[in-house]
């Protein structure tokens, strides 16, 4: 029974990181109809910036204050997003969507090596952040407190994002623009600005995912590409462009991964892709997507 509790927590832990990445991807697609292949690399940037900032400050600041640096990665990714959208993506909106996919693929290659160039080939880890929290006993087994924090942040982020999109004025504009760009524009919405904001928010979520996971898994080269693929699986299952879908998809993928690692390690990834393909066959737009 005790291992069961740990497995549920592990699943939720995976799910909350996945949700942070996938929600950004799905938000950007939902509003702008762009599948950002570089999204995983923005997640990696979040991890690198946080690991780097904490590494610089460690020893000079008390451990509690280091937690203030945790969101650094999220803000760095958001800032990068705010620069990238007007410079690289905006010139392409009138072109066939192949070009948008291609330019984000080019961006993926650039960011991959930019991180290599900036932070070198070795992994960085702000592990001190997870160490200071210790662990607690849950139903007879010990579980790291930091992982509980990650689960909490994931669900808080889901709540905030939901409130943001469905309860605020900005959310109304966002949804209107995603439904019909030209109509929104005719009604006086500054579509250019909405696009920058949506892209920046999406990048912020990815960066937050990277920042929060870095004390556990470190910042490693290649983590972006792996994360992107898992985020794809999540949004394909849940439906591209749907926040609820991202949440449900993350939870499904989180649980399947935990089960996979324990019981069928060899085909864990294959199973995930097969689930995604099966969902697409039955519901082409995903569980919560609109076709």
């Amino acid at each position: 029974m005790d291992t069961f509790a740990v497995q549920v927590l592990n699943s939720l832990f995976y799910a909350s990181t996945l949700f942070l990445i996938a929600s950004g991807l799905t938000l950007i697609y939902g509003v702008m109809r762009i599948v950002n292949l570089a999204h995983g690399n923005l997640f990696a940037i979040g991890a690198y910036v946080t690991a780097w900032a904490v590494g610089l400050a460690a020893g000079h600041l008390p451990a509690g204050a280091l937690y203030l640096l945790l969101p650094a990665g999220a803000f760095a990714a958001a800032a990068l997003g705010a620069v990238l959208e007007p410079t690289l993506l905006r010139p392409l909106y009138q072109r066939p969507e192949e070009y948008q996919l291609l330019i984000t693929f080019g961006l993926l290659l650039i960011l991959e090596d930019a991180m290599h160039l900036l932070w070198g080939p070795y992994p960085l880890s702000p592990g001190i952040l997870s160490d200071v929290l210790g662990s607690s006993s849950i139903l007879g087994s010990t579980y790291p407190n930091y992982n509980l924090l990650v689960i909490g942040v994931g669900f808080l982020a889901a709540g905030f994002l939901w409130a943001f999109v469905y309860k605020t004025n900005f959310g109304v504009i966002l949804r209107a623009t995603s439904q019909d760009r030209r109509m929104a524009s005719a009604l006086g919405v500054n579509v250019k600005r909405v696009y920058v904001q949506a892209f920046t928010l999406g990048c912020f979520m990815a960066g937050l995912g990277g920042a929060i996971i870095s004390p556990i898994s470190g910042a490693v080269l290649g983590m972006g590409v792996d994360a992107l693929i898992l985020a794809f699986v999540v949004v394909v299952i849940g439906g591209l462009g749907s926040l609820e879908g991202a949440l449900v998809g993350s939870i499904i993928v989180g649980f399947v991964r935990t089960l996979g690692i324990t019981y069928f390690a060899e085909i864990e990834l294959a199973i995930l892709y097969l689930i995604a393909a099966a969902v697409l066959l039955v519901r082409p737009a995903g569980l919560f997507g609109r076709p």
Partner: protein
Amino acid sequence: MTRSPLLAGALSPWRALAYAAPVALLMLVIPYVAAPYDTILLSYGLISAIAALGFNLLLGYTGLLSFGHSAYFGVGAYAVAFMVKYLHITSMELFLLGGVAATAVVTALFGYICVRYTRIFFSILTLALSQVLWSLAFKFFWVTGGTDGLRVPTPRLLGGMVRELAGPAEAKVAFLSYRYYYYVLVVFFLCVAVMWVIVHSPFGKALQAIRDNETRAEFVGVQVRRYRLVAFLVSGTFTGLAGALWVPLNGLTTPDILYWPFSGEIVFFTVLGGFRTFSGPIIGAVVFNYLKTYAVGYTVYWQLVLGVVLVVLVLTMPAGIVGTLSQLRLRLRRTS
């Protein structure tokens, strides 16, 4: 959406031959004038070109962007590696047959699933399915060798009529830069000829009709889904054939060629050359191979170089090398 007028004014077969013949002659003498290393590099380029030709039947002619063509390249390559490992076959012709048969089966299955969708969903589904194969190749190391991959020794060409050279490494280089180069060249020309016939046949025209307007194509009686499936099958099989040709040249197959960034590279060289033209993918594949090889040799940050090239290309030259050259020629003709 802007359509370039290039395909409208397509070359007649005889004009095309007039362009192709000098290039073909030049390629025939290359092993005598170029260093073995450069000849082998050109072989890689030609093999990539076969893959790109296949890929472009979907992207350029049918309007479907596959982000999973690494799967078919990989199936061709792994089929050969398995034939070596488990059946101890050494004949190159059997390799090609086996590679083509294996990819035809896989593409028929994947295609059946994928052609129900278009646009971004098609791209994502092809990507997801290709990753199933990658993760299997990656995890089942006792079958596929995992990340170590499987070795493929020098094959026998034409049932031993062209003798393989046993022995030191120089002999292998000589074999690859001379006999194997000509072998690749012949297969390449055959593939170009077959693809030329396909895209200029009524079938090829129907695919272009589907690309330009699916609804209209359906109204004039084109069975859209069946045509897409056949295009998918042909496209994947060409790429699989390229994979089968590639393994003996590389000597090793690893899961990297199944991983989706390699699909991105296939897209890259097609766009580099220009996917709205017939010759674009060929030129793009050869140029990309030199570009990548020199970037890798010059700096560890070669991905950065390639990424910048791709971004600049998309922003400034969306028609690719061949497309841009043709547009320039048209403009010159108009002003003169």
